[in-house]
């Protein structure tokens, strides 16, 4: 079954019909269908006569008569048959790939079936999934479905242009096993395999065997070569150089001992294996992705079809199964694993002992218990990792789970490790198993035990079986996963709905601006460059220069004169000034392209110098001289060619181009020329082809007017959030600085929440050294009186009762606080709510006396006690909101220090001495809005969201987030994607009523007599009209009635044509 097909059960095909109009061409076929009636498959259910009248159900009695009376113009509702366009959908329809157009294939039995490659966009598996099938009922709908929703048109996701349909599971395994270096076939077996790729309908050129003597043998890689390009004359040349999953860095990538670097030249595999990274989904380095961008979707789909076919047939013969023997660890593996675990246990015991003695050095920002917990977790999670590595090392090369983990078809190293060696630490909500009983997790363990086994470390493997305590820990963490999944579906589902509602009206207009249904501009140019993320070849770039240059090098005609470096730059400069470049592309992109070509020229010049040839990086004198004479010799014959540039520049170019490198090189040694040629050869046709290819690809990736960028953006943001685990905290550098991540954080941002769970201000420092950073930290971090007081005593004397606070000046010095006694007194005096005022006095150098003056003297004692409790919590220094702060060192190795401050203190932080206020921002969007303005808030929204998606390894094109940022900020304030925000973004009553609080909106509208222009998507759907996005943007101004067949008109040259007839036409 092809990837764009779906098997429709016969009994479904008998119910679903397509109304086909009878024409002279299909009347015989339709008549036969009518005769067969509704009960046998290729039949028909109803006939509607041309002139109107009742629809006739084809019961047995009327079949013959209807069939005989069938006339041109009647409509026959015939059964679905092979090749009909159907829409196929699976809930939840989270993105546009959840409904795609397939080609129907009627088959027996009772299930819908489709190619496994297409599981990914639907997120479908075969454990009882149900899907829906719809049949478009007009020719227009069919065409639109096929061209826009077709599977082959949707091989990549609009989220970031990565392929989403690719080889899965068995297909990957097959590709992996087949391309192993040691796989050889004799002629019969090879031809058998090649035949398995096709349906006996293809002409195939047999490639020469890779081993000729002592026996003719073909390698498995050659099978894939034929699969990619069956005939030598086929234009389908795939060129790729990409690391695969098993690639480990080596000096020469090609010689990777595991054969992990894939090089495909003109559809022949030179070296490397195929695995998930190059045939699977989700990577832009994939073979299918290259085929898609260089040869079109049909070619890519055809490749996938062939691989699927080959895979099914090959693996049926070869066999690939898993048994107990695959998960039985060998003696060596067992011994090494036991050592590993014993070692880890010993280290944990040591740590626990240390912490008992108090000898454990605390981590920054943690107390002793947290430090112990963190270090033990580190040690134990390391055990699982090293056990995983151990399994990969020790298991045989024919071990099925290992093969699957290596090639990425199913499972990971840790899955293999869990089956074979050790299940590992069980984590429940981010930490080790908590104590469910008094001071212990289970009554099997001593109280307050911190040992690995008492806190959920499972040392057994699934093969050996778990002990009862291990089992319950494992079950507990398994349950957490289930609960999480159940909770997050509801939460992300609601978020998705809100996003889509807010975004649904946004579309690209013909002037390339993005506007909503009311015509309000949200972006002047989509994403700043009008590029469609769906079409992008590279990561957020429209054209991958390196890839395309390589492709051109391998496919271009070898003929043509070679170019010297200076000629390359000239050609590039001339081409980039052409209108097709200037008009359609951004200056930034042109600069990138010219930079690439300049690098190419420089590379060539360097090579030429290295091998003793004249580099010709600059225009040589004789060519320039030629140009001069040429320009003077040339009369001004072409008077009409008036250009802004004086003609000398162009003339110089022309003669520089006619200067021949080959002629100039004629007297140089052959080997030098050969070696330079072999390394880098640039000819005029190659360069022209490259430039053409680049501009073609760029133009293709421009976003089309009418594209529903809003809906696509909302889906692209919403769909990946459903895949995030709900509760996730991320440690930003220091253990103490928790920054909430994942779904809760995304929710905060798009709700534009006033209060967020972890506000953090990132400050840039003016002086990049630790001691000054400490001082700044001291300035900003809040200091409580309790932290700098040595003691707070109650003093009862004959004359007065007061609290005496002794300040520890040593601590103040150590913390480098700029704090005087007077300042402390001031802080205490002004402490909120306590109303101390003038009741505080400085005594001596480091003592403060705080008096109380209660209204009721009998309450003196209690007032003193209350004050005593409150005093240590008085903020004497720093920003009250800045609870904690940490000095961070940037991870990129530059040693740049920055300060992270917890709390809503952006303004205070920015104005603190020693902090560079220009590079200081908060992760709290509303604070940014308040203190830095709307543009800063927009930028922060985009930056925060993209960092979250990055952390989860979800590729999301920045353009979607830019749209979100613009939508939330285009009204001049940050609007959340909530019912309040959406109400401010959109005026349409019907749209708001279809969202939330239906009755409120409707009553309001009734009371105030509101108008609705019915321009938006929701309104149009409610009113049953066509929505103004995509192909619904433009309208046909002519009125036409589809049910009236067009009146036959006489043609101009018909013999009876008269003046009158011509006039009517």
């Amino acid at each position, binding site marked *: 079954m092809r990837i764009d097909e779906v098997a429709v059960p016969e009994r479904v095909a008998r119910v679903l019909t397509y109304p086909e109009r009878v024409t002279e061409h299909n009347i015989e076929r339709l008549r036969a269908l009518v005769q067969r009636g509704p009960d046998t498959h290729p039949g028909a259910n109803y006939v509607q006569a041309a002139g109107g009248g009742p629809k006739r159900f084809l019961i047995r009695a009327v079949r013959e008569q209807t069939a005989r009376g069938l006339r041109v113009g009647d409509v026959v509702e015939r059964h679905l048959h092979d090749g009909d366009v159907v829409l196929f959908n699976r809930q939840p329809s989270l993105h546009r790939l959840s409904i795609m157009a397939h080609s129907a294939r009627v088959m027996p039995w009772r299930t819908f079936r489709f190619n496994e490659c297409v599981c990914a966009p639907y997120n479908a598996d075969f454990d009882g999934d149900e899907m829906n099938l719809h049949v478009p009922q007009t020719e227009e709908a069919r065409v639109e479905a096929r061209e826009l929703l077709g599977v082959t048109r949707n091989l990549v996701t609009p989220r970031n242009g990565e392929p989403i349909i690719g080889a899965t599971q068995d297909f990957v395994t097959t590709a992996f096993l087949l391309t*192993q*270096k040691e796989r050889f076939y004799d002629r019969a077996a090879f031809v058998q395999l090649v035949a398995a790729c096709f349906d006996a309908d293809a002409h195939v050129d047999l490639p020469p065997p890779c081993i*000729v003597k002592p026996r003719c043998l073909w390698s498995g890689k050659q099978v894939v070569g034929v699969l990619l390009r069956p005939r030598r004359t086929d234009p389908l040349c795939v060129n790729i150089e990409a690391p695969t999953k098993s690639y480990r860095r080596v000096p020469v990538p090609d010689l990777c001992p595991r054969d992990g670097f894939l090089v495909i030249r003109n559809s*022949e595999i030179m070296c490397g294996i195929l695995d998930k990274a190059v045939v699977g989904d989700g990577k832009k380095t994939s073979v299918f992705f290259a085929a898609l961008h260089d040869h079109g979707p049909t070619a890519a789909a055809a490749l996938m079809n062939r691989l699927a076919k080959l895979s099914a047939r090959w693996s049926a013969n070869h066999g690939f199964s898993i048994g107990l023997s695959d998960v039985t660890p060998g003696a060596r593996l067992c011994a090494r694993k036991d050592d590993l675990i014993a070692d880890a246990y010993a280290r944990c015991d040591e740590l626990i002992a240390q912490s008992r003695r108090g000898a454990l050095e605390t981590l920054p920002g943690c107390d002793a218990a947290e430090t112990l917990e963190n270090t033990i977790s580190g040690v134990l999670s390391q055990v699982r990792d090293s056990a995983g590595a151990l399994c990969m090392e020790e298991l045989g090369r024919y071990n099925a789970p290992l093969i699957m983990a290596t090639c990425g078809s199913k499972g990971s190293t840790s899955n293999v490790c869990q089956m074979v060696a050790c299940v590992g630490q069980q984590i429940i909500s981010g930490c080790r198993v908590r104590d469910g009983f008094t001071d212990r997790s289970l009554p099997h363990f001593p109280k307050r035990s911190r040992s690995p086994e008492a806190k959920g470390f499972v040392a057994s493997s699934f093969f050996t079986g778990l002990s009862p305590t291990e089992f319950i820990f494992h079950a507990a963490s398994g349950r957490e996963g289930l609960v999480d999944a159940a909770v997050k579906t509801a939460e992300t589902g609601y978020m998705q709905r809100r996003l889509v509602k807010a975004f649904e009206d946004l579309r690209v207009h013909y002037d390339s601006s993005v506007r909503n249904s009311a015509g309000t501009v949200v972006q002047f140019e989509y994403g700043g460059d009008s590029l469609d993320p769906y079409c992008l070849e590279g990561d957020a770039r429209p054209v991958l220069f390196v890839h395309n240059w390589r492709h051109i090098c391998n496919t271009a005609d070898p003929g043509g004169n070679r170019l010297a470096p200076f000629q390359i730059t000239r050609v590039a400069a001339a081409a980039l000034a052409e209108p097709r470049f200037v008009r359609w592309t951004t200056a930034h992109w042109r600069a990138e392209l010219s930079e690439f070509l300049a690098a190419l020229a420089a590379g060539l010049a360097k090579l030429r110098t290295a091998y003793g040839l004249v580099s010709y990086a600059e225009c040589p004198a004789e060519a320039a001289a030629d140009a001069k004479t040429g320009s003077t010799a040339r009369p001004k014959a072409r008077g009409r060619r008036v250009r802004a540039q004086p003609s000398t520049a162009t003339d110089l170019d022309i003669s520089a181009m006619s200067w021949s490198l080959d002629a100039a090189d004629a007297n140089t040694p052959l080997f030098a020329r050969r070696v330079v040629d072999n390394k880098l050869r640039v000819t005029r046709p190659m360069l022209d082809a490259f430039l053409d290819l680049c501009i073609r690809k760029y133009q293709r990736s421009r976003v089309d007017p009418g594209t529903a960028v809003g809906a696509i953006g909302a889906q692209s943001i919403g769909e990946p959030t459903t895949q995030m685990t709900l509760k996730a905290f991320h440690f930003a550098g220091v253990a103490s600085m928790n920054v909430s991540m994942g779904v809760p954080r995304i929710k905060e941002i798009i709700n534009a929440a006033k209060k967020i769970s972890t506000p953090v201000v990132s400050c840039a420092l003016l002086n990049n050294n630790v001691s000054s950073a400490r001082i700044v930290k001291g300035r900003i971090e809040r200091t409580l009186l309790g932290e700098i007081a040595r003691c707070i005593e109650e003093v009862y004397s004959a004359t007065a009762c007061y609290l005496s606070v002794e300040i520890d000046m040593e601590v103040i010095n150590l913390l480098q606080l700029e704090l005087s006694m007077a300042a402390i007194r001031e802080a205490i005096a002004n402490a909120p709510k306590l109303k101390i005022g003038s009741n505080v006095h400085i005594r001596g150098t480091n003592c403060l006396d705080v008096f109380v003056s209660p209204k009721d003297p009998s309450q003196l004692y209690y007032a003193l006690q209350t004050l005593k409790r409150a005093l240590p919590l008085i903020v004497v220094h720093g920003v009250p909101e800045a609870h904690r702060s940490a000095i961070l060192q940037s991870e990129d190795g530059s040693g740049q220090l920055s300060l992270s401050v917890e709390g809503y203190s952006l303004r205070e932080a920015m104005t603190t001495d020693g902090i560079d206020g220009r590079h200081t921002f908060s992760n709290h969007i509303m604070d940014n809005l308040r203190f830095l303005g709307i543009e800063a808030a927009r930028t922060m929204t985009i930056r925060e969201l993209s960092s979250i998606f990055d952390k989860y390894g979800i590729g999301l094109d920045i353009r979607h987030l830019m749209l979100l940022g613009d939508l939330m900020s285009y009204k001049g304030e940050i609007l959340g994607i909530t019912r309040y925000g959406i109400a401010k973004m959109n005026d349409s009553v019907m749209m708001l009523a279809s969202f939330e609080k239906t009755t409120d909106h409707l009553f309001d509208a009734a009371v105030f007599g509101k108008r609705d222009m019915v321009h938006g998507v929701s309104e149009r759907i409610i009113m049953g009209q066509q929505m103004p996005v995509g192909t619904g943007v433009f309208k046909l101004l002519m009125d036409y009635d589809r049910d009236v067949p067009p009146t036959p008109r006489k043609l101009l040259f018909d013999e009876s044509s008269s003046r009158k007839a011509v006039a009517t036409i």
Partner: protein
Amino acid sequence: MDKRENILFSDTFAVKDMDKGGKKFDRISRLDGRSQTHDMSLILDVNTELYPVEAGDKFKLTLSSSLSLGDSKEPAAFRKGEANWRAYVNGDERSLADDYDYVMFGRVYRYDNASGSKVSAFVSFGGLLMCLEGDIRHLQNFIVGDTIYLLMRKI
């Protein structure tokens, strides 16, 4: 070196080492060779099931663009690179392959900078790699993208 024009390179190599980085495949071994006359080094994947090689072995290695023997009487088919193997497999004509024990067919696909005047040429024989490193003068006959035959004979 052989003077026939289809012979691109010919030399005797000694096997220094087998599977230096550990044996990764059962039937394929990677040999490290050192040239006897020219200062060349060789890395070559060999199907050891068909043609066992051990460290210390010496062999003659010839790279040629066709299996032609260079005399005028040979069948025309031999002169064209890719069609050679059919003529060899089908016919009992004498060919270059008769003098050797192990023959592979592949494609030069990459030239890389080694150190200084040394160059390494990468040839792939259906996935079995050869990396021949040496002075550019000895490697000047290869052109990237061309098909070549590799012929080996133990001495």
